[in-house]
Structure formats: C-alpha cells, structure tokens
C-alpha cells in the first residue's frame, strides 16, 4: 500500500515560520555515516525527514505536527535539536 502523506497534511492549517525551522539535525555527518537505521525517515508522522540516495537525511519542517517523535527516537545519537516554534507559528489545529 502506498500512502501519500502530503495529501493528508494538505488538509491541515499551518503558519510557517519561513527560514526559522524549529527543529534541526545537529550533525548531518552522523545521519549519513553512522546511523544505519535512519528511523526518523520512516516514523515521522508528517514525513519531514527524507532519506536521499546519497545516504543523507534531509529535514523540512513545514509539515511538522509538533509531536516530538523524531527527538525521542533518536536516542542512539541524540542528533535532533528540537524546540517549539515561535509563539503563534507552526501547526494550527482546527479540530485537534
């Protein structure tokens, strides 16, 4: 089964804080060279983390649901710097 998560996220309301992502990968080298499992690329419920052919992990936070999964599952390397977006920015749930 193929699931297009972007289609799901399209239903959500966001106020994106352009050029100020609230989550970042601390050291990209660790993701590509050391982390064999790259679980963030599978488990992030908004598919913000993408595995590139080169072994790099690319993070785009625009669709982030602010759940905290990526930070907690990166427990082998603690390579995710995670803050809440600035006040008023990020996901805005209509129904919650």
């Amino acid at each position, binding site marked *: 089964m193929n699931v297009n998560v972007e289609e799901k996220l399209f*239903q959500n309301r966001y106020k994106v804080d352009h050029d100020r992502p609230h989550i970042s990968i601390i050291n990209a080298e660790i993701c590509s060279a050391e982390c064999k499992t790259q679980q963030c690329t599978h*488990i992030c419920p908004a598919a913000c983390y993408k595995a590139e052919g080169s072994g790099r992990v690319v993070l785009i936070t625009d669709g982030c649901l602010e759940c*905290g999964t990526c930070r907690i599952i990166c427990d082998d390397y603690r390579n995710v710097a995670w803050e809440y977006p600035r006040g008023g920015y990020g996901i805005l749930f209509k129904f919650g």
Partner: protein
Amino acid sequence: MEKFDAIVVGAGPSGNAAAYTLSKAGLSVLQIERGEYPGSKNVQGAILYSDALEKIIPEFRDEAPLERHIIEQRMWVLDDDSYIGTNYRSDAFNKTPYNRYTILRAQFDKWFSEKVSQAGALVICETTVTDLIMDKQRVVGVRTDRENGDILADIVILADGVNSLLAKKAGFHPEINPGDVALAVKEILFLPQETLESRFNVKEGEGVVIEMIGKITQGMMGTGFLYTNNESVTIGVGCMLSDFKETRLSPYLLLEKMKAHPAIKPLIEGGEMKEYTAHLIPEGGLKAMPQIYGDGWMIVGDSGMFVNAVHREGSNLAMTTGQMAAQTVIELKQSGKEMSRKNLAVYRAKLDASFVMKDLAKYKDMPGVFHANRQFFTTYPELVNKAAHTMLTVDGVDKKTKEREIIRSFTRSRSLAGLVGDAYKMWRALR
C-alpha cells in the same frame, strides 16, 4: 519586572484546571499558551470524562462544546479480515448527568480557556516559554520569546504537555524513553449526521466508542480507536515508540491499512477527511513518572506522565492534577508558607489519596508485561478470531472435534505452560 502569584505554562486540560482554580481563589495568575488560541496546539482522541471537570466547573454541561454522550462501548480484537468483540450498551448511559462525551479539543479547550479568563487570570497566547528562570535551585519565573519577555512568580506550574521541554532543560528529569511513550496518529472524517447515526445505531446526541486491539498494530504494542462526534468520526491508531523504532513502520501506513479493514471500512465510507494529526501519549505509568514538584515548580498533566493507558484515561487525570496543584498553592498562600519543595509535598500527598495515584499504582506493571509479551497483540487476537471462525462455521464437523481443534491451535502457538503463564502474568499485573 512583573510578578504574579502563579504562572501556568500551557492551556490544555491540566493548565486550564490549575489556572481556573487559582484565579477563582483570588490569586494573580498568568497563563501562557504558544498556540494562536488555546486548543490550537492540542490533540486528543477525544473522550471527556465528566467527573473530573464537574469537580472544577459543575455547570459545564450547559456551556461547554460537547459532541455526543457515550451510550455504547465496543471492544474489538482484530485479525487481518475479521474481528471478535464485546459491546456494552446501556440506557443508564442515556440518563443525565452523562458520564462521558466525545469532544473536539480545539473547540473545548477554547471554551475552557474563556472560563479561565472570566475567573480573572491573564491569558496570553502566541507566546512560547523558552526557559525557566532560576535563582540557584529555585524556579522564580519564566523566559518567553517576546521582547522583554521575562516574568516572575512565586510558583510556576508546568502544564506544557508530553514533551515537557522546560523541566528537561532545567534538568528536573531526563529525556523520555521511547519505551514510555506511544505515538498516535488520527484523522477526523466528516459524514452527514443521519448517515452517522444510522451506521452506529444511535439517535441525536448519542455516541459510540470502539476500542481496538490486534493485527491493526502489526505486532506492535498499541491500540486503535474510532469515536463518533456530531457530524464526524475520529479514527486513529497508536503504538509504543520503541516498537515503531524497531519495526520502522510508518504510522500513516498503519492508519491507512486500519481504515481499509473490512470491518472498519463500511463505517467510515464516504467520510471527508478534514484534519490529520499526530501526538505522543505518555504511557510509561508510575514507574516512568518524573519528580513532579520542587522549589518553585510543579508538573501537572501529560508532562508528569499522568495517563492511565489501560483505561484510555488522560484528560481527567490532567484536570485533577491541575486542580490539586492549584489547591496546594492556595493552601500554602493562605497560611503564608513559601513554595518550597518541602511544602509542595502536599501536592503529592493529595494525588496519592486520589484515584490518580491509586490507579497508576494498580497498573504499574502493565507496561512492562505488555513490552515483554507481544503475544497479547499478535498471537491471541489471531487465535480467538480463528476459534470463533471454527465454531461458527457449519460444515458437518461435530462440535467436540472443533473444540479439540481450537484447543490444539492454542497449545500449538503458545504451549500449555505458555497459556498458563500468560494468564498468570495478566492476573498479577491487573490485580
């Protein structure tokens, strides 16, 4: 710098309960919420348990935005293309005062927050608290992302949700273990009211909840749910993060497969999806609970792991912890005592004497048992479904032979010792 009696960080059920109770007692309260409005960052299934809220706002039924009161609970154990289950439906649940309701959190939290403002608290939205301000070991205020955004208070109540970043940054507790938290994803699907009511066999205002276990979590420790709102259903599935990490299954794939299950699909057919959400649920129980108070600070709600995962309760524990934290502050204030770690121990004592800690203590071994015994989520759902299928298929085979076949299927999968052991483990964990 401005100073308040109390600062409450977050405007979910626990923060609102705390801020409301404090304000009602005449304390000066600042509540800080990072969302555009209270509720815009909050996610839940969502079932509201009346009792906890009634103890805070007795007249809530006349004002709060409630969806449907629950008259029927279904429990389903699913195999790939079947389920076996139980229903409990009672007309007693159809008599006021109703015991529980479905709600939409974005609307409900907004209403609760209006009550907090009316009670006299200053509620500031679109403001993220970035750090706690410390004076040696003591919390004396908060730093926000606003200009000149430092604010002081005698007590800071942390109602900042499951991620509990502030207490973590301050070093009050370490990062959450992936084995102590579940990741749940859900969608809200809109249906015409008449369609929904005929599908679920209810009248206007009446609702059904379906809790599910089995193949939908693909071997992971977790559950699924389907709740009826007024003109929509909420459908979701959640599993422990440690299991997600191990299997590397995508949560949205799990949800899509669940929606395609032959027992579920007809119930949601034609539903228009209007929001997709994800949220962590702190399910580690009592053994994973952090220190919940210290000099100048207290933790309430999800940030303190106050969730009864077995009974799917959380928002009621959140409200009760918020209320009891507030009552503790009020008592100390009235007797002129400082908000020290020693004096705030009263908060823990109040919780210990309530259903909150009693229930968490009762189920303290459940997370461990489920983690170590995945068969409860895989083998057993399969076996009971197959047993029902064997018994209910009329094919000329006599019932005695069918019984033997079923017993053999159980002992083959789990062995007699395994079956007895599982029963014992469950009994020990639940007693």
